[in-house]
């Protein structure tokens, strides 16, 4: 609102009231007192209206006051004589009440707060416009004013109508006035103390005025002068309304001091809301905060609140600091007028709030830091200048071993973190660091109160204040106990590794990326000849020109990250020769995973190679042996399947030859297929017991030949390790073909039986011969002699005849006995030998015999055998051959065998199998390991031939012994 506006308003006012005064002076129907008062009231309104408009430009109060003032001034037009002007004036006179009513109801903010107020005010405006017009329509001039000009809008002068209109108007006015009063009273009641302070005088004054107005109207019906007086008093009251307003204005200026008081109170730490309320004089004041990081309003306790808005007579003032809203003050609406006060208070509040906010932030930061420090795994402790612990975090407490921090705080650092033996040292070190306490590092090993050994590295630094004074010493520590353990372990591991490398017989060579030797162990020295000093730092020496290609390939593979093992090759020695080695190599990676070098292990396999060769030779020798021995050899696995090794079946040459199976017919098949079913069980048992480690006893089985025949074998099963690399359990079965032997044994058994039988037969025959022959004769002889004895006396001649006959009988008997004896064993053979005995035989043979006989004596058994052969043969020839001559020859052949032959020229056809005599001879001959042959073609004579081996001189039976022959017969 510029000065120009002010000047304009003032000019208008002066103009209007100048005019009014002029009119009042010249009017013929004006009551002086009333007019004067009216003008004074009007001027008062106008002046304060101007002031209010200036001071509170946005407050309508000023405008309303001006309206009242101007309208009232225009009301002075009633003082004219002009009908039109008069009418206009009467309208304006009444019209002034409308802004007045509005002013009162909207005081002090200038706004009508509720609909009821607005309606009321609207009604008033309506009434004051319509009323006088209606009255003017029907009333010529006011009753009391006869000199007044007529109404310009007079339609009809009707007493009844204008009375009615007036009454109506009066009623309406009264009603509205009453309503207004009620509303004012209500407003006052609902108002807070500051508002009441403002409203009080104004309303009070106005109420009084109203009373008088009502009184004036009421009394006016009865008494005019009384009504005038009352009206005058009412106007006087109204005049004071602006004065009251001025009072309100003045008060706000005084209130500025309260801001200073507020600041002081805040400085002393008074709660903000209370202090602000006191400063503004509004106990209903509320602060809502807009915290920085939130998006909503909170109250002093931090609880969320709704956004402060202006409702029901309360206003909101924003508190801002540097353009940023930080709070809102909700206060009584009446304080809106006192902008300066409120702004000043808000500014103070802003300062205070900022301080509060900073404090809150500081607290938060502090809380954060404390938590950080407390929960950090590192140790934090603060010491005072004497070395006592001021405070510590949780980690420190834990390291110290104490559970109660009271036991740590206040104690000397070295008493908590030092062992008795080094406490003094620690204390001295601390004291030596004073007074500068320069930042330092220190490693501290101690055993805490719980007995746990700890190692902590401390870093200390002094804490200074703004002036540079040292306040305390901060020590930060890291518990490196674990790390120390690990270091020790690592060293231990390294030591072990070193020991392994040093002691290993294998050559271990480590090289860097350029193939220069880094490590060369004693094993390498032994294998290659160079010592470590000779090779470390230089390129690897073991690769000769012939190794370059292969070594280059190996190198490439290792560099690509591969690990190589088991590579058989050779490398160069210091003396220039090559050594056979098995190589394993791998890249060595650094801690970042990249390859930093290579490590190679060389194992000297010279011996191993030799042994392999030897083993191979042995194996070949064994193989040859197995193949050539006559024993049948077959190797089976645990399931009795014949082994197949490198395509060949596990059988030897003898097996193939004897049984007739080929390699592929046999390989992999079950051995039981080649064994007679009856013997299969025994085979399984034998193999099983061999697998259990018990070498089986010899068993006999029948094995099948390819052509279906059986052979009898005597076999054993032995467990054997697998010659190939697989760890199977195998069984070696070796079998001897005993088919012939079995047959021989059968024959021998049979022959023995026959021999025994023959002996028994001979005995029986002897007994019979004795019984039948000699014994009978002797018996008969005995009878005859007795007869002769009986007849001796009576008939001597017959007795003599009987005796003679008896003598003959006796001779026969003796002869028979002699024959018999000869049959058993001829004495001549024992006494004079084979030749003589055969000659005696020949002498008794009825046919001519040609004999060729040895001169020397032979072993008794041999001579006996030959004698019986010849004897039996001669008897057979005589009995069956029908021959004319016989030839007998016995001769020693080469000193080792004696050959005897008896041949005749008879009919032949002798069957050696049929005659038991020849059978018995064969047995006798075979019992001496000899052989009997009979050749007897039909019609071609018969030849019996005997070959007998002569025993060696040491085993020779004594010759010519009396008694039984030495060989059993």
């Amino acid at each position, binding site marked *: 609102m510029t000065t120009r506006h002010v000047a304009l308003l003032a000019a208008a006012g002066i103009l209007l009231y100048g005019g009014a005064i002029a009119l009042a002076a010249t009017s013929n129907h004006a009551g002086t007192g009333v007019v004067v008062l009216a003008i004074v009231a009007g001027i008062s309104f106008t002046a304060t209206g101007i002031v209010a408009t200036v001071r509170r430009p946005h407050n309508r109060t000023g405008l309303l006051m001006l309206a009242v003032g101007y309208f009232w001034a225009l009301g002075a037009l009633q003082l004219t004589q002009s009908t039109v002007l008069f009418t206009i004036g009467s309208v304006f006179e009444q019209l002034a009440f409308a802004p007045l009513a509005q002013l009162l109801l909207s005081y002090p903010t200038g706004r009508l707060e509720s609909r009821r107020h607005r309606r009321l005010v609207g009604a008033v405006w309506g009434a004051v416009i319509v009323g006088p017009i209606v009255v003017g329509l029907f009333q010529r001039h006011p009753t009391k004013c006869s000199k007044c000009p007529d109404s310009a809008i007079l339609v009809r002068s009707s007493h009844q109508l204008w009375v009615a209109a007036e009454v109506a108007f009066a009623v309406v006015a009264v009603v509205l006035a009453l309503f207004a009063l009620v509303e004012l009273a209500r407003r006052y009641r609902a108002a807070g103390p500051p508002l009441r302070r403002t409203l009080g005088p104004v309303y009070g004054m106005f109420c009084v005025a109203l009373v008088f107005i009502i009184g004036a109207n009421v009394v006016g019906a009865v008494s005019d002068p009384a009504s005038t007086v009352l009206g005058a008093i009412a106007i006087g009251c109204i005049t004071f309304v602006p004065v009251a307003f001025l009072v309100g204005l003045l008060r706000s200026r005084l209130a500025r001091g309260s801001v200073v008081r507020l600041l002081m109170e805040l400085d002393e730490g008074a709660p903000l809301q209370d202090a602000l309320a006191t400063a503004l004089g509004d106990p209903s004041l509320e602060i809502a905060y807009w915290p920085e990081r939130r998006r909503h309003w909170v109250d002093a306790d931090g609880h969320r609140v709704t956004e402060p808005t202006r409702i029901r007579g309360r206003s909101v003032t924003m508190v801002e600091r540097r353009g940023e809203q930080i709070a809102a003050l909700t206060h009584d609406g009446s304080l809106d007028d006192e902008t300066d006060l409120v702004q000043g208070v808000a500014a103070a509040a802003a300062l205070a709030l900022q301080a509060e906010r900073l404090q809150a932030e500081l607290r938060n930061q502090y809380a954060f830091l404390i938590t950080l420090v407390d929960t950090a795994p590192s140790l934090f402790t603060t010491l005072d200048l004497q070395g006592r612990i001021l405070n510590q975090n949780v980690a420190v407490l834990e390291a110290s071993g104490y559970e109660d921090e009271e036991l740590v705080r206040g104690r000397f650092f070295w008493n908590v973190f030092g062992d008795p033996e080094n406490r003094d040292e620690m204390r001295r070190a601390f004291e030596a660091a004073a007074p500068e306490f320069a930042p330092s590092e220190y490693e501290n090993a101690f055993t805490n109160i719980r007995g746990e050994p700890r190692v902590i590295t401390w870093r200390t630094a002094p804490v200074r204040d703004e002036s540079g004074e040292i306040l305390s010493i901060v020590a930060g520590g890291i518990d490196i106990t674990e790390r120390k353990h690990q270091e020790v372990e690592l060293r231990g591991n390294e030591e072990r590794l070193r020991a392994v490398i040093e002691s290993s017989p294998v050559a271990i060579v480590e090289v860097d990326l350029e193939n220069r030797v880094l490590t060369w162990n004693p094993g390498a020295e032994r294998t290659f000849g160079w010592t470590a000093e000779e090779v470390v730092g230089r390129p690897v020496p073991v690769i000769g020109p012939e190794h370059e290609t292969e070594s280059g390939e190996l190198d490439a593979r290792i560099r690509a990250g591969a690990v190589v093992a088991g590579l058989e090759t050779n490398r160069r020695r210091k003396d220039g020769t090559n050594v056979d080695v098995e190589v394993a190599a791998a890249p060595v990676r650094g801690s970042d995973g990249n390859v930093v070098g290579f490590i190679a292990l060389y194992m000297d396999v010279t011996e191993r190679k030799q042994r392999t060769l030897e083993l191979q030779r042995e194996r070949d020798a064994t193989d040859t042996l197995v193949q050539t021995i006559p024993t049948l050899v077959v190797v089976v696995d645990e399931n009795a399947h014949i082994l197949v090794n490198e395509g060949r079946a596990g059988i030897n040459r003898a097996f193939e030859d004897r049984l007739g199976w080929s390699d592929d017919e046999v390989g992999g098949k079950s051995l039981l297929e080649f064994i007679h079913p009856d013997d299969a069980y025994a085979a399984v048992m034998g193999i099983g017991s061999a697998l259990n480690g018990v070498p089986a006893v010899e068993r006999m089985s029948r094995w099948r030949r390819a052509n279906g025949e059986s052979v009898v074998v005597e076999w054993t099963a032995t467990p054997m390790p697998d010659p190939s690399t697989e760890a199977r359990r195998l069984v070696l079965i070796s079998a001897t073909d005993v088919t012939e032997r079995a047959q021989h044994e059968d024959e021998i058994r049979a022959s023995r039986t026959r021999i025994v039988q023959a002996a028994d037969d001979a005995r029986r025959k002897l007994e019979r011969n004795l*019984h039948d022959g000699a014994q009978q004769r002797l018996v008969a002889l005995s009878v005859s002699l007795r*007869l002769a004895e*009986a007849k001796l006396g009576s008939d001597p001649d017959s007795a003599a005849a009987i005796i003679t006959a008896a003598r003959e009988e006796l001779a026969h008997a003796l002869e028979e006995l002699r024959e018999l004896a000869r049959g058993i064993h001829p004495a001549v053979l024992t006494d004079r030998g084979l030749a003589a005995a055969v000659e005696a035989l020949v002498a008794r043979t009825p046919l001519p015999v040609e004999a060729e006989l040895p001169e020397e004596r032979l072993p008794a058994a041999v001579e006996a055998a030959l004698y019986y052969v010849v004897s039996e043969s001669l008897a057979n020839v005589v009995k069956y051959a029908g021959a004319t001559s016989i030839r007998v020859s016995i001769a020693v052949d080469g000193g080792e065998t004696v050959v005897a032959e008896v041949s005749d020229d008879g009919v032949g056809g002798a069957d050696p199998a049929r005659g038991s005599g020849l059978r018995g001879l064969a047995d006798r001959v075979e019992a001496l390991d000899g052989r009997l042959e009979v050749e007897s073609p039909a019609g071609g004579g018969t030849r019996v031939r005997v070959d007998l081996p002569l025993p060696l001189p040491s085993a020779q039976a004594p010759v010519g012994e009396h008694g039984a022959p030495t060989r059993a017969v």
Partner: protein
Amino acid sequence: MRKTVLIVDDHPSFRGSARAVLEAEGFDVVGETDSGGSAIEATRSLHPDVVLLDIQLPDESGLEVCAWLMSLNGAAPQVVLVSSRDGCDYGELIAASGARGFVPKAELSGEALSSLLE
């Protein structure tokens, strides 16, 4: 009256000497056979009073022949067993055979025979 005797023995020399002794000592030798079978036939046909029976016969045992002879009802002859073997060799058999007795061949005489007969 002289008793009739049948001599059963497979040795002719003994048969000869036995005949000579028995005829000289009061017996009538009516026949000589050399086997069990022929002995039975001869007994049937000749009806001898006495049969001098050798135990060792070629075809049958003399004891069995004796048993058969004993079974001849009515006409059973008196049997005397002889042998070149000892009587002890036969044990109870002789007693159980039904024969009158046993005489070793070497001691054969008329008297020895008569002593056994009834």
